Every structure is written in C-alpha cells, then in structure tokens.
C-alpha cells in the first residue's frame, strides 16, 4: 500500500469520491491505464493523493506502489465520475461501508467532512484482513476518538491482535443492523470494496429497510490492476 501525493498543474479540482485514470507508456509506445480513486479531500492547491494497493499480478499497481519515485511524471485524466460523491450540502447522517482499499474514496469524503467542519454525523464500518492491512489507521484512530462526530468500527477478518476486542468476521447483516443508522433516519450510504462485500452489504441494507436509491456502491474485483 502506498499513497502518492501528486502535484497536478492545472488540476480543476474534484469532488469527494471521484477517480482518475492513470496511463503509463513504455519506451516502445505500449500503453496501459487503470482507474484509481482520489483519497484526498477536494482542494484548490492543484494537488491530489492516490492510494495504491499493490496487486502481485497487476500491471500498473506494482509500478505505482514500487518503482515510481519522487520527481517522476504521471499521465492523469480526470476527475471522472459524479454519482459516487458526497458534498456537505448533501447532508446525512452518513454510513460508510468499506472493504480493503475500498476505503479510498470514502476517505476523501471523511477528509472533506473534516476540512469543511461539517457536523453531519458519520459512521464507518471498515473490513480488513488484519490490523496491518487497515489503511489510514492512525488517521482513522484520531477521527474516531476526538469527538469529531465520526464513529469508526473496524472488523478484522483473518488475523486479530491478542488484545483485540473489536469485530472479527466478514461484514454481514447482523453487523450492519448493529452499526447502521435506523432506516427512519434516512442515512446516505456509500459502500465500496470487492464485489462479494458490496453485494452482501447492499443486499443486507435493503433487507434492513434502507431505500435502495440512498445506497451508492462502487465495486472492484481482483483485476483492478
């Protein structure tokens, strides 16, 4: 896992939840491209952050997470997308459900919420294999413990530290029932992660009585590159 802070001259700005296309070109002209969610809050300083999970059989992520170094240039296109986005004016309460690197676009929303000093209540349920796999762990610890109005709940599915007294299984209906705002509060729900997690969580939320139109999903398979 690696976060890339990019200076992008002329960047028009983005909305929290949008992504960019990154295109790489080899010296024989071969090109390939992949999409990455923007993890930083919208800003006017022509900078953005991408967080890249290295996939061993990937073509682009090993380069971005390994080879790339400060000073290298990248070809970007964006911002792209406009449905899986949140802005303070959209209100809440907010429920974020993330798996693995699916946290990235949700992090942009949480960071925007902080930057805009929004008081919209937010809950994050975030599934990782182990504590080491929790992306933005320190930042999420701070967010969840400073009375910022954000509640952070981690679930560790494969490996838990000996002292762990939190959740320790894959996200399921019972967990969502305990964590989610009641449907009567009409939360805005964003779910992002691998397809089985998104499918399970979105179905369970509909069964719990949440309006399908208020559940926005973003999915990626193991072929995200």
């Amino acid at each position: 896992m690696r976060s890339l802070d990019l200076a992008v001259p002329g960047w028009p700005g983005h909305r929290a939840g949008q992504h960019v296309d990154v295109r790489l070109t080899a010296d024989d002209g071969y090109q390939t491209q992949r999409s990455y969610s923007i993890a930083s809050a919208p800003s006017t300083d022509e900078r953005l952050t991408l967080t890249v999970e290295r996939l061993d059989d990937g073509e682009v992520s090993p380069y971005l997470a390994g080879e790339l170094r400060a000073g290298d240039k990248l070809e970007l296109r964006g911002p792209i997308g406009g449905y899986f986005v949140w802005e303070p004016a959209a209100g809440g309460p907010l429920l974020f459900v993330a798996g693995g690197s699916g946290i990235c676009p949700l992090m942009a929303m949480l960071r925007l919420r902080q930057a805009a000093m929004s008081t919209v209540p937010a809950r994050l349920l975030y599934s990782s294999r182990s504590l080491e796999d929790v992306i933005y762990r320190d930042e999420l610890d701070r967010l969840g413990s400073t009375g910022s109005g954000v509640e952070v709940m981690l679930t560790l599915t494969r490996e838990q530290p000996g002292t762990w007294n939190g959740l320790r299984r894959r996200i399921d209906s019972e967990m969502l029932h305990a964590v989610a705002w009641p449907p009567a509060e009409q939360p805005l729900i964003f779910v992002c992660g691998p397809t089985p997690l998104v499918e399970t969580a979105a179905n369970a939320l509909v069964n719990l009585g949440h309006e399908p139109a208020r559940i926005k999903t973003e999915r990626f398979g193991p072929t995200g590159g």
Partner: protein
Amino acid sequence: MGFVSRAFKGRPRDESRDARLPPGQYLVHDFPVLSAGPTPRTSLAEWTFSIEGEVDEAKHWNWEELRNLPSETLTRDIHCVTKWSKLDTAWEGVSVDTLLEGVETAADYVMAFCDGGYTTNLPLEDLTGGKAWIAYAYDGQPLESQHGGPARLLVPHLYFWKSAKWVRGLRLMNEDSPGFWETYGYHMYGDPWLEQRYSGD
C-alpha cells in the same frame, strides 16, 4: 500522445491477443461486476419488458412470453469502460430485431430503462440488424442477478455500460438524450475501438 513512464515495462506484448483488444483495454478471465447501487430484485411473476415512447403502439411481454420468442446463441468479446475486456463470452437471448418486428416508429434513438432506475441511451440503428439482444443466459446458465439477470441488454460492439443490466424496456426517442452514466460525463455513443470513454473523446 503522452510521454514515456520511466522504467515502466508493462506486460509481455502478445500480438495475437492484441488484435482483439481495443486501445487502452486489458484482458481479464473472470467477470468483474460494476454497478452504482444495490442489485434490484423483481420476481419473474412481476417482470415485464416493454417497447414504448415514440411508437404507434407500445408492446409488452411478460417473462414467459419473452422466453417463448425465438432465441439466439452468440459468442462475443465484451469491453468495459473501466478498461477490462473479456473474450468469447457466450450468451443466449432474443434479438432486438425480433422485439421490434411490426413496431412502427420514426424515432432514431432509444433509452434503455431498468429496475433500480438505471438508463442508457443508444442510436436505434445500433440495436437493429443483428447487433443487440435481450440476454437471459450466460455460459449456458440463467443470467445471475449480479450480472444483470433475469435479463440484460447486450450490445457488445459498444462499451459494456450500454449493455444495461436488469433491463425492463426500450423507450424510443426522436432526439438523443443522456442516460445515467452519460449524465456523469461518459460518452454518448461509447465505441471502444475509437476509445470513446468520456464526453469529448
């Protein structure tokens, strides 16, 4: 276009494979799932398919009626705007030509509409002449709900977001009008060979 990315090698070049891959696409062997919201659920007893809008008379089929129409099996390559392509996917469904038989219209465009509220726009001529199907089986099995079952539009010569999942009908239109992703900046037509991913391509 662009510049060389220092020390980027990329996957081994395979000429025989590349000829079937549109520009900017890479091959997958699984079947990724992408959708903007929960997978909708409509029981087959309630399911209908409609052709409506700028037509002399709207047409409707229930599930059984659709399944009793002549079907075709076909094998095609599919290309998703998120850059993956999958070769030789095997489908069964009803040709849109069959559904449009006897439909009188002067319309040039179509909005496909779906359970869950999804829409996508296409020129009518891209749905006729053996280019589009209402598909209900994939790889010899009923189409799974996460892939758009019970039935999805299949228009394999365009980016796959045009092959609307959970399709419930076609609304014929005199003027082109953006559907769901097209409203968010995706291309109005979406030819993968011209790499028409986003508005302005």
